[in-house]
C-alpha cells in the first residue's frame, strides 16, 4: 500500500486530487465528468478516457460493453483506459513470454496476463503470489471474445484492509459517475451546496451570502465548504483594501478559530486570497 499512491498519481488523470480525498487514497480517479462541469459524463467523455485510472470490481470488468469491435470499453457509460482491482490469485501459469494469473475478487474471476521481463525469467516469484491478495493495474483486452487484463503491475497486498478499501473505492467511483459528486463537493455557485455546511445551524441568517461567490465559482469549486464560507465572508464584509482580520472572519462567519485558520490557509494556497498588512489580514484577490 505504501508505494501505491505514487503509481496512482502517475497513471491517474489530472483530476486525481481535485476533491482532496486525502493523501493516500482519493476516490475520484475516474471523474471524466470534468470536475462536475459537464452535465452528462457519458456524452462528452470521448478522448478523456486515455488518461484515467479507475478502481473497479471484476464483475464490472466482465460486464463492460463495447459499441463496436475495436471501440473502447465502457463502464457506467464512461470509457475506461487503465483499471485497477484487488483480488486473490487462484492460479499462476508461467510461460516463456508471459505469466497468466487467474484472479478472484468474490465478484467474478478474470485472467490477468503480464509480460515476462526476459532478464528476470524463472525466478519463481510469480508462484509466490498464488493464494495471495494482489492489486492489479492494467488495461482491459479482448481476444476471441474472451476478456483479460494486460497488466503493468501486480503487487502483493500486505494489509488486508486495502482489499476492503478498494471495494469501497470502486463503489464510490461508480456512484460518482452515475449520480454525480457528493453534495458537499458540488461546484460553488450551486445553491444546493449551501445548506450542507456542518456549521449551518450556527450561522445567523443573512450573515453569509453564498450567492456572491458565483464570480469565483471556477476557482472555488476545488476548495472545502468552510473555505467558501470564509471567502464569502471576506468578500461581503471587508471594509478596505486591507481586507479583514482573521478574528473578524471568525466572528462574522461563526466558525471556530482553527477552522478559519485552516480555510484561510487553503484559500491562500489556492491563490484565491492574499495577506495584506500582516499575516492576519486577508483580502480577496479579484
Amino acid at each position: 500500500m505504501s508505494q501505491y499512491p505514487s503509481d496512482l498519481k502517475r497513471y491517474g488523470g489530472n483530476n486525481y486530487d481535485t476533491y482532496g480525498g486525502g493523501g493516500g487514497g482519493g476516490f475520484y480517479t475516474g471523474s471524466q465528468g470534468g470536475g462536475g462541469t459537464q452535465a452528462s459524463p457519458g456524452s462528452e467523455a470521448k478522448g478523456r478516457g486515455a488518461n484515467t485510472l479507475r478502481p473497479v470490481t471484476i464483475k464490472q470488468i466482465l460486464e463492460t460493453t463495447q459499441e463496436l469491435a475495436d471501440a473502447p470499453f465502457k463502464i457506467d457509460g464512461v470509457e475506461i483506459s487503465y483499471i485497477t482491482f484487488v483480488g486473490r490469485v487462484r492460479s499462476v501459469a508461467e510461460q516463456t513470454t508471459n505469466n497468466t494469473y487467474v484472479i478472484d475478487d468474490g465478484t467474478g474471476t478474470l485472467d490477468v496476463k503480464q509480460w515476462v521481463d526476459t532478464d528476470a525469467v524463472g525466478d519463481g516469484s510469480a508462484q509466490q503470489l498464488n493464494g495471495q491478495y494482489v492489486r492489479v493495474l492494467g488495461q482491459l483486452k479482448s481476444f476471441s471474445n474472451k476478456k483479460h487484463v494486460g497488466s503493468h503491475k501486480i503487487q502483493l497486498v500486505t494489509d488486508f484492509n486495502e482489499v476492503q478499501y478498494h471495494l469501497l473505492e470502486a463503489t464510490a467511483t461508480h456512484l460518482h459517475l452515475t449520480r454525480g459528486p457528493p453534495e458537499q463537493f458540488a461546484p460553488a455557485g450551486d445553491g444546493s451546496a449551501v445548506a450542507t455546511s456542518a456549521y449551518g445551524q450556527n450561522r445567523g441568517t443573512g450573515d453569509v451570502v453564498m450567492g456572491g461567490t458565483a464570480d469565483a465559482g471556477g476557482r472555488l469549486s476545488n476548495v472545502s465548504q468552510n473555505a467558501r464560507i470564509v471567502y464569502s465572508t471576506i468578500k461581503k464584509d471587508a471594509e478596505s483594501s486591507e481586507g479583514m482580520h482573521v478574528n473578524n472572519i471568525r466572528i462574522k462567519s461563526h466558525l471556530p478559530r482553527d477552522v478559519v485558520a485552516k480555510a484561510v490557509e487553503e484559500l491562500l494556497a489556492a491563490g484565491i486570497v492574499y495577506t495584506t498588512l500582516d499575516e492576519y489580514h486577508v483580502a480577496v484577490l479579484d
Partner: protein
Amino acid sequence: MSEQTPRINARYLEKFVNHTVRIVGKVTELYGDSAKIDASGTINLILTRECHMTVGNGVELVGKVQPTGDVKVLSSWDLGPDVDYNIADAVVDATHRYKDLFYDV
C-alpha cells in the same frame, strides 16, 4: 454465477442459505472441527482439516451456508490481528446496497 462469492455477515445468513459466500470475521472460539467467529453477530463454522485459524485473529473464508445457519468452510485465510471490522461491515453493506457491482440476482 457460481464463481461469485458475495460478502456477507451474520445478518445476511438467512438470505444466503445454500449459497457460497465470503465472510470476514474475528475468530472467537476454536475447536477441533468447528469454530465461532464474530461478523456483526456470531457465526458457527464447520471446519475442514485444512483450516488454520487463530483465536483473536481475523479470518476470511469462503463457505456454504447450511439450512441450520452454520457455515461449512471451503477455504479460509488467516488475516492476522490488524483487521478493521468496521470497514468489513461497510463493504458488506455496500455489496448488498449496490449489488450491480458485486453479484447477480
